């Protein structure tokens, strides 16, 4: 048991020491590569104006759910695979 603990301690110590040395040297680039996407206006904004189109003056009412005559018509068409179920 003591021996196991000792070897775990050594393992962590040597891994950390090596990782620190390599990181400081900036030598070998780490395996993990992050995807960046910059977007200032990405998050939803609060506002105090009335939407221009809110005065439809027609029978159209937003928020009334019509029967689901709509089907997705976007880039989902480019996604394929056996886990897709057939549309209902």
């Amino acid at each position: 048991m003591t021996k196991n603990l000792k070897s775990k301690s050594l393992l962590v110590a040597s891994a950390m020491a090596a990782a620190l040395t390599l990181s400081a040297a900036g030598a070998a680039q780490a395996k993990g590569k992050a995807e960046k996407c910059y977007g200032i206006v990405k998050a939803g904004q609060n506002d105090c104006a009335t939407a221009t189109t809110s005065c439809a003056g027609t029978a159209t009412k937003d928020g009334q759910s019509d029967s689901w005559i709509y089907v997705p018509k976007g880039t989902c068409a480019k996604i394929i695979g056996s886990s897709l179920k057939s549309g209902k």
Partner: protein
Amino acid sequence: MRKKVWVRGMATLFDIQEAFLSAILDSQNDVIADEILGHVVQERLNIYRNNTFITLRQALSQNFPVLCRLVGQQFFDHMAGEYIQKNPPTTPLLMTYGVKMPEFLADFEAVGSLPYLADVARLEHLWNMSFNGSDTAGFDLETLNRIEPDKFEDIIFKCLPNMQLMSSIYPVLDIWLANQAEEGASRNINLDKGPCHLAIFRKAQEVEIMALDLAGYSFFGLLGAGKTLGAAAEQMAGEYPNFNLQEALQNILQNNLIVDFEFAE
């Protein structure tokens, strides 16, 4: 929503606001219409209903741009309308409105044929949480160099406070990447590519998404849960024999994913 009737002139402000709410969310105009002056009352009420739905829909499409591209604007608008009715905002903060979108999509029959959408929505919400999450001051690796090596196993790392972790059985990062441009995806994606494990975080102003393997993802999870380095290493060695501790640590240190550390008692 229960319907209320009151004697004219006896309605309290609370009654009026409750009835107005039913008019907006459930198109129940009758009760409040009685309280409104003049003609064309229905149309005037509709302006408020329309404005609420239009602006909340705009907030949802800003918070879920990839979802919007995947299903197309028209479908998204109708789907968002249903979402708003079922999950109207309970705080005035629109920057993170839509927290229940993954669950909503998972139960939403009209997208039953697109099972990956819920996870795409989850990724977009986590992206937003990271975007708006706490900032960090940065961390000097030198402080770790001053530690006695035999103390490393007792270290508890504090990861970036805005870091989020998620995994999916679908390649949602590929889907997300292919839908960053306004013009829509230019390449096909095969869902059979399999699962992905992601860390989403922000160091300065840019949100980053890092793909990890299952072992790396589990290691992040253990550190995030406050395990000591020693305990995390031990658990990883038991569960993932091929796990390379040094590489995983190098990844964390080199990418500046920790902001602080402490020692276990």
